[in-house]
Structures are given as C-alpha cells and as structure tokens.
C-alpha cells in the first residue's frame, strides 16, 4: 500500500497528494473487473502513469450513480465473485505511490462484518437482530492502508456515523459537490470537506463524454472562494478535458469511465490493457499540467471556457 507518502503539512494523505502534485490526476477503476489479479496490475499501471490518487470501486449490485460503463464493470466484477474481503486483501497487497481510496455504496459499508456477533460498542442496546453499522468496514479499510472513502449515495446529511468512524481511524470521507449543490448546503458541505471536494462536472451519472460541460465552469466559479482542493469528475476522458478543467480552476481531475473502457476493450489481455492504462494516465496528467501551465502564463486572468 501507499506507505511512500511522506509526512507533510496537510490534514491528510489525500489532501497532500493533491496539493503537492498539483494539478492532480485521480483515477478510478472497479476492483475485480475482470478479476482481482488483473486489478492489481491495472492499479500499478495507473500508479506508474502518474496517478496522484487512485479510487478503487468495491462493487455493489445497485450502482444508481453510475452510467452504463461503470455499471457494466461492476456487473463483471460481481460475476467474477468479487467480495469485500477479496477487495481488502487486494488492497493489503498493493504498494503504490498514490494513496488509495475506496468508492462504494453505503449498503456495502453497513453490511461489512455483519455476520459477526452483535456489537454494542456504539452504546445502543444490543437487539435480537443485528443492526448494521459502519465501524467494521472503516476499521478494515484503515487496516488495509486505504486513505479515504467515497460513497456516491451518502449525502452529508446522512454521513454522521461514517464521518465519525473515519475520523477515528484517520480516513478521509470525500463528499461530492453536484451542479445542484448551492446556498447553505454548499457552505455546509464545503466546511466539512475531508481530503478534497469531488466536483461533479454535470448532472447525471458517471461516463466518458466528448467535451467539458459548461456546468463544470459554473461549479468551479461557484467554488472559487472556498480554500479546499477541488477535483472534477464525471465525463472526463481526454487530456484536453483535463487541461480545460484545470485551466478553469480545478486542483485535480478525476477519470474513471475512460479507463474502464480500456479494460473492457482488452478483455483477458491484461498486459496490453495495463500498458494502455499507463499511457492514458500519462496523457491525462500531461493534459492537466498543460492546463496549469496556461494558467501560469495568463496569470490570474483565466481564459474564457469553451462552451460545449
């Protein structure tokens, strides 16, 4: 796992990874697609390619926030028998430059360890039927060396228990900022940012798109005043997107579906897939840097965003 990250001035490994490698590249793939062994090679390839943070998806059967690409990857991973324990064993085994985060749905967190004896550690009376709770998952995640958790179906309002457990174990709980997140809710969420703010580029689900939406520019403008790292995801697939997003003020870009596409295309040819993943990561990282350079050249005067 990512023991390579040095002690630093930031609150967490995750924030450090973004700040210190600015503009940061955050990559996502689904663990177990097409197998956990392959995932290990792909994570290492992404790490080599210049990823500054890597999100690993723990598959859940009802991925309501995902588009068709990642949904299909999750189905492949489930069909291959991917379990939470297998996932954690993979993470135990990984040694990457980039810190690792787990991205999964809330029910997976709730059920982890649920078959063990009833726990009453949170002070509730132990009921005849075991009530699901989040600590076993967080403990195991921390133990495996994960640096943070992203839960697409857990808005800030419901995040109390998981946030507390993450705090106790030194993990970041990354919140998503949607184009619809505004006003008081935006303030509240931004004040709780842990690691970085995951800026959702557009309404809808995950999935590679041909261009950068105007919503991205609007969101980044809206977030300008908040002094937290911002990474933009949902629809980023090319170096030029990365450049544009960074140019528009992001501290990092998040790429998932474009990488999952590569994995899907190559089927069982793990070596070729790994090679292309590494190259794609490098392209995206270069793109992000290009965006940052252009900012430096233009000084404070950011260029007009290209409207899609």
């Amino acid at each position, binding site marked *: 796992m990512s023991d390579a990250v040095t002690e630093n001035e930031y609150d967490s490994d995750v924030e450090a990874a973004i700040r210190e490698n600015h503009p940061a590249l955050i990559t996502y793939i689904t663990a177990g697609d097409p197998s956990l062994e392959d995932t290990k090679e792909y994570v290492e390839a992404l790490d080599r390619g210049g990823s500054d943070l890597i999100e690993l998806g723990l598959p*859940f*059967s*009802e*991925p*309501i*926030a995902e*588009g*068709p690409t990642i*949904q299909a990857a999750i*189905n492949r991973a*489930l069909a291959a028998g991917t*379990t*939470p324990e297998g996932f954690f064993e993979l993470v135990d085994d990984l040694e990457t430059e980039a810190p690792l985060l787990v991205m999964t*749905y*809330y*029910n*997976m967190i*709730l*059920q*982890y360890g*649920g*078959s063990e004896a009833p726990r009453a550690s949170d002070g509730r009376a132990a009921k005849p*039927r*075991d*009530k*699901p709770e989040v600590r076993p998952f967080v403990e195991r995640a921390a133990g495996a060396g994960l640096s943070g958790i992203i839960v*697409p*179906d*857990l*808005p*800030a*309002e*419901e995040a109390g228990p998981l946030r507390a457990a993450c705090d106790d174990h030194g993990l970041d709980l990354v*919140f*998503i*900022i*949607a*184009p*619809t*997140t*505004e006003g008081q*809710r935006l303030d509240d*969420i931004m004040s709780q940012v842990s690691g970085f703010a995951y800026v*959702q580029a557009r*309404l*809808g*689900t995950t999935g590679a798109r041909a261009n950068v939406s105007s919503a991205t520019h609007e969101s980044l403008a809206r977030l300008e005043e908040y002094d937290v790292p911002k990474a933009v995801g949902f629809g980023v697939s090319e170096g030029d997107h990365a450049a544009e997003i960074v140019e528009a003020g992001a501290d990092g870009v998040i790429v998932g579906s474009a990488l999952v596409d590569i994995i899907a295309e190559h089927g069982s040819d793990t070596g070729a897939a790994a090679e292309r993943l590494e190259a794609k990561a490098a392209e995206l990282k270069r793109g992000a840097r290009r965006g940052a350079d252009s900012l430096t050249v233009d000084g404070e005067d950011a260029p007009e965003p290209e409207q899609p």
Partner: protein
Amino acid sequence: TFGDDYGGQYVPEALMPALQELEDAYERYVLENEDGFMDEFHERMRDFGGRPTPLQRADRLSERYDREIYLKREDLLHGGAHKLNNALGQVLLAKYMGKERIIAETGAGQHGTATAMAAAHLDMPCEIYMGRTDINRQRPNVYRMRMNGAEVNPVTAGSGTLKEAINETMRDWATTVEHTHYVIGSIVGPHPFPKLVRDFQSVIGDEIREQIREEAGRLPDSVVACAGGGSNTMGTFHAFVRDDDVDLYAVEAGGSSLEIDAEEGLAPNSATLSTGTDGVLHGAMTKLLQSEEGQIVESHSVSAGLDYAGVGPELAHLVETGRVTPVNVDDDAALNGFHRLSNLEGIIPALESSHALGYLERAAGTAADTSSGQRPRDEHTDELGDLVVVNVSGRGDKDLETVLEETEKRDLEAAPDVEVFDA
C-alpha cells in the same frame, strides 16, 4: 425517518436539493392543503379515479370463515388497482411545483400505467422506465402506457426487471432533476417519498374507517393487506395505526420457499418483512433481501407486483415495533386465494391481493379446509377476530395468463378444472 433507523435520504448529492424541494412541497401542499391542493386531489380521485371505492361484505367468505369479512374494493379504482391514488397525487403535486416532465419506473406495469393515465389526465409529458424482460412479459401494460401518450424506455441492464428500472429512473432523475419529477411507485425511496406516497394512499384506510363504522358500527378486529413495496399496505393501515385494538397483518409473498440462495443471489420469495435484514436500498434504510455482504438478491413471487427485494421503511419500523404483524403465504396459497375469491365472490383479484386472501384462508379457514396445505394453522388464528377487513388492492385481469400457466403446474384445491379452459 421512522423510529431511530428506518428511512432517510441515501441518494446522490445531486438529488438532495430536489428532495428538499419536494419535502417543502409535501409540507405545504399535502400537509397544509395550500392552494387547495388536497381538495383538488380528492376531487380528481372522485371524478377521474372513482373514489370512494366500496367496502363490500363478502357473503360467501363470511359464511366460510364464520365471521364478518369485508373487502375493500381497490380493484374498482380507475386503472384496476390502488396505484392511481399515488400516481395522481404525485403528478398533481409535480404540476403544483411547476415541474414540466414526469418519469417513473415500473415492474409489472401497474405503476407505469397508473402514472401514464394520471399524466395524460393532467397533461404532463411522461416517460416510463421498464425492464426489457418485464416489457416482454407485460405487453398489454406497455400498450396501455403508449396509448395514454407515455414514452416507454426499455431497460436492458441486468435481468431487465423492476430493480434495474428503478436504478435507471434514478439515473434519469439525477440528470434532469431540475425540471422533472420522479413518481416513485411505492412507499419506498428517500424521504419524503415514503410519507408522501403513504399520505396519498391513506385514502384507502380513511374510507375503510368510515365505511366499516357505518356498516358494522365499530372498527374491525383486524385488517389484512398484501405487502410488496407496501403502498397498499400502509395506505390501508395508516388510519388504524393508533387503534391498538385493530390488528394489522402485512401479507408478503412466500414464493416457493423462504430460504435465500446467497450463492446465486436469489431469494425464491419476497418476504422482506419476515426474513429481511436492515440495509440501504434505493435511498432508504429499510429491511432488504440481501446477501451477508450486502448485495441485493433477486426476489421472486408468482405475483410480479410483490416481487421486490425491499420494503417501505415505515412498514419495517412498524414491524420492528410490533405494531404490524408480518406474515407470508406461498405461491400455492396465493393461487388458491385467487381462485377462491373468483369462484365464491365473482371478483377476480390481482395476484398481489390474492396473497391477502390466501392468508385469510390459513388464519381463518377451518382445520378441515387447510388439511391439505403444507403449513400449520397460523399462530395468529384467533387474533383475526370477528370482523375482518381485507384489502383487494387490484383486479386480476392482468394476471389471467400467469394464473392459467401456474395453475396447470399444480394441484390446487380451489382451482376450476384447467382442461375446460381449452373449450
């Protein structure tokens, strides 16, 4: 939330503002009748929907079970099931909220057709997501939706059934949330949907309360309703929750067995209240049919409308507190319930509702009547009491083919000779 645990809003951040907007609208229009919203709702349910539906004394069932059995006739509602109460309520609410488009998921097609007719009635563009497998199984409902002017979007993911249709509708909503309202079809989903749907459906129990008092001069000893997602269940129960003397029975689909095959991710039942465990699905903490690791399993019932791995969080809460008694009957008992009501009372019930009738037979039937069944006489036998109301949530015309097929496979005591169907 209901109690400490059940309910909540476990949805992508992008939907949270819409849920807050809906919560606000729910409070103003539904709870406070702002702009006369609830008046218009009730008026349209009367004129367009056919409310009130009758509470009918079932003469021959009363004789058979030696007690007073009343049937709440939601099968007579426009569209053929209780679904319109909710669909019309939500489409009207969307209109009051200034939304321009309606989306909904559907499994067997009942909620989709109800939403399509409500949308046509209120002149709102409407798109329905439906799994491709369900589309092929339920073509007449697809036609009805199309004829009512709704688009039907096939969902090809997974097994192409309700679960996938819900996921897909949520995805649409995550994209279009600003001008689109998602009409959830049961008392499931994130807050405020479970309360919103319950409040629209509670017209069922409100009417029963008034009608049974008029007919029998008192409240019933027990109320029986089938439970899938739970909208007819809570709609029937809500008016009685505070009446401790009225026992509430939620009858789930026992399918072919209560065991879950975790290996295959299959539950040959949808007895979520009876056998499920707590977890989060489709926006709410509730009881679920899931593997130990948290993957949702495929439920199964002979009744497509009960075939769902979750259940309304409020029902989960009421079961947890002991206010509602969860029971279940298997496919055979439901089919017998179907044939019994058809034959004895001249009412062909939906297979969903047939579960409630199957339970009635088990709990109230004589020992002789049930001697051939596999299950023991239910422990709650004596608790049904002398005055029982059963909700007939829908009519069974939609189920004729299924019932014929399934009847032919079995030796059912209440079924007519199948051969003669070939007349």
